[in-house]
């Protein structure tokens, strides 16, 4: 009888969680999924490899797509011209109109692997050599910015996602322990959390970063950043989760279940965790953009993922030079790409928050 009632109660909690997933923020979630998927498919979607250099096309502006050729004929298939350096200058290009190069789909090119599983050498679009199709322009070494943006997303976007997952996990365990057991466990964990919250996060991030070796391989740097993010960010979610667990633990149905001899583990799994999930997800939607920003900031300052591996942060780093800042607007694109991503996360967090408020028991 009691057993039936308690399960009804937690079904409520669970349906609120399910309800939260199917309402309001579906568009934001879908779009974010699309963004993440396209970075994973970077090999196929990007016309060039992330490290492919064209030293003679340094800082080329985004390639213009044409439909009308010099003779005035209209082509339905867009085409581009090759670039040559304008005589008398060393960093200005002009189109060589003597030959047109059509934009083609499913062109063979540099081999790639997707998620380390599938390999291929066909790219969604491209054009014939020697012309280059730089949708977003090229950087100092003539590397295609569009391709690097896609590959860089694999680092920047996933560092945020995984870092948030990590610190949420730590926060979940520590906050859960503190809220569930109370007394000195609670006291100890919360005092330490307070210290982590007393530091401005960027200062904390750099202080933790200092304790780690300065020069590291890009692959290791990625893992390292994840570890640093997980370490600095656990305090806020832990504190929130502690509060939820604390109040969940003292609810009548939980006390009743405990009275009937339910084990701690059962109580946690069956009654406490479903309530925590909602707030944990909302926290995640808030944490991920902050962590993406953390990676971008670290790499921007040269303390994160280093060249030649692209990340949105180290792609922005060249803007620290005034001539790049003033002359090549397309170098801002990795930073501008962050805006829609952050916007989607904020919309997601808002929607999750509203669902949570509407469903809160």
């Amino acid at each position, binding site marked *: 009888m009691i057993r039936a009632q308690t399960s009804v109660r937690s079904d409520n909690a669970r349906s609120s969680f399910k309800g939260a997933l199917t309402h309001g923020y579906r568009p934001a979630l879908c779009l974010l999924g699309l963004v993440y998927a396209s970075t994973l498919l970077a090999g196929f979607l990007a016309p060039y490899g992330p490290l492919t250099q064209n030293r003679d096309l340094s800082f080329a502006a985004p390639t213009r797509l044409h439909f009308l050729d010099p003779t005035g004929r209209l082509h339905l298939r867009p085409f581009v011209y090759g670039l040559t350096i304008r005589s008398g200058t060393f960093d200005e290009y002009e189109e060589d109109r003597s030959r047109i190069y059509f934009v083609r789909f499913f062109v063979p090119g540099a081999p790639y692997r997707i998620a380390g599983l599938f390999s291929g050498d066909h790219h969604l679009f491209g054009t014939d050599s020697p012309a280059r199709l730089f949708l977003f322009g090229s950087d100092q070494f003539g590397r295609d910015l569009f391709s690097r943006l896609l590959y860089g997303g694999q680092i920047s976007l996933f560092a945020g996602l995984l870092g948030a997952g990590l610190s949420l996990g730590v926060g979940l365990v520590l906050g859960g322990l503190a809220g569930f057991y109370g007394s000195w466990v609670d006291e100890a964990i919360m005092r330490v959390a307070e210290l982590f919250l007393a530091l401005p996060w*960027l200062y904390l991030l750099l202080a933790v970063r200092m304790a780690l070796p300065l020069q590291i391989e890009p692959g290791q740097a990625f893992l390292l950043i994840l570890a640093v993010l997980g370490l600095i960010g656990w305090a806020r979610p832990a504190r929130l989760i502690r509060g939820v667990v604390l109040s969940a633990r003292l609810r009548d149905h939980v006390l009743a279940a405990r009275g009937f001899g339910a084990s701690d583990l059962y109580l946690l799994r069956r009654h406490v965790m479903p309530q925590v999930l909602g707030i944990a997800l909302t926290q995640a939607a808030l944490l991920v953009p902050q962590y993406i920003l953390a990676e971008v900031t670290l790499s*921007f300052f040269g303390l994160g993922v280093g060249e030649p591996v692209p990340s949105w942060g180290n792609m922005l780093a060249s803007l620290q030079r005034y001539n790049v800042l003033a002359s090549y607007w397309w170098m801002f694109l990795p930073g501008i790409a962050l805006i829609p991503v952050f916007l989607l996360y904020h919309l997601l967090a808002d929607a999750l928050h509203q669902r949570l408020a509407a469903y809160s028991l």
Partner: protein
Amino acid sequence: MRYVWRRLGHALLVLFGVSVLSFLFAELAPGNFLDELRLDPRVSAATIEALRDRYGLDQPFPQKYFRWLQSISRGELGFSVAYNGPVGPLLWRRARNTLFLTVTATVLAWLVAIPLGVWGASRKGKWADRMGAGATTALLSVPDVLLGLGLLLLAVRTGYFPTGGMVSLSFAELGLWDKVKDVASHFFIPVTALILANLPVLVRHVRASLIEVLQAPFIQAARASGIPERRLLFRYALRAAANPLISLLGLSIAALLSASLVVETIMSWPGLGPLLLEAVAARDLHLVVGVVMCSTILLVAGSLLADTLLYWVDPRIRQQG
């Protein structure tokens, strides 16, 4: 008053904890700051031994920490390898510049945010409010790095503002009025960046807490007795909504300091941010700990200020205290 004293004691405890914590991080780092110095042929072995002795580098962690505390009492806060001198004097100048920047940005951001938030709340759901909400969400999504770089681009392109630093090269020769003008022109771009970085959060909170208050019965009563709307909003509603906003003032300082680190570095403003980055790159442990402590002090002082303000504004807290 006991309330304020208790807060002060708590703040000191936090500072103590943060210093232990940052020393623990330093302990985890491989090598120590004398390794770099040892490579310098101009530094004699005796000097290194003297430094090693002074900062107790061979000693276990508690002693090392104790030595550092001792050097605080001398006003040194440890030894900086990169600058080859005590950390303390380096910090004060930089902290002053950061404080100058962040305090101005905070005051201006609040001065802009309060009317905007009140205005949004009083037109809740109307198109102007929705536009405002959209604009704040959009601004919230612009990363600090991009904001700083964008404004710097503006300065470079228009040429109206200097593009970095705090003073011009000829600063020492200028008269007093020109000095003020010079600093102000260097000041404009970083302070604008900080205000824009901080504004959306503030406007959202002002709006939200004011909307909550506007639903209270006493507002309806006030409105029914014919108090003009503007007076109602700014005199009565805003005062009732002040509590969460004052708490936010304390909390927003943390975000402000982080944004300030980025903005200072991009605009080469000689504050704590560039100093910390240099220190991290040079693995200058005591300097890093010093800067981190400094930022914590600013943060703790900010929340202390907010708590005191709360104590002053809210009679309920005064009675509890």
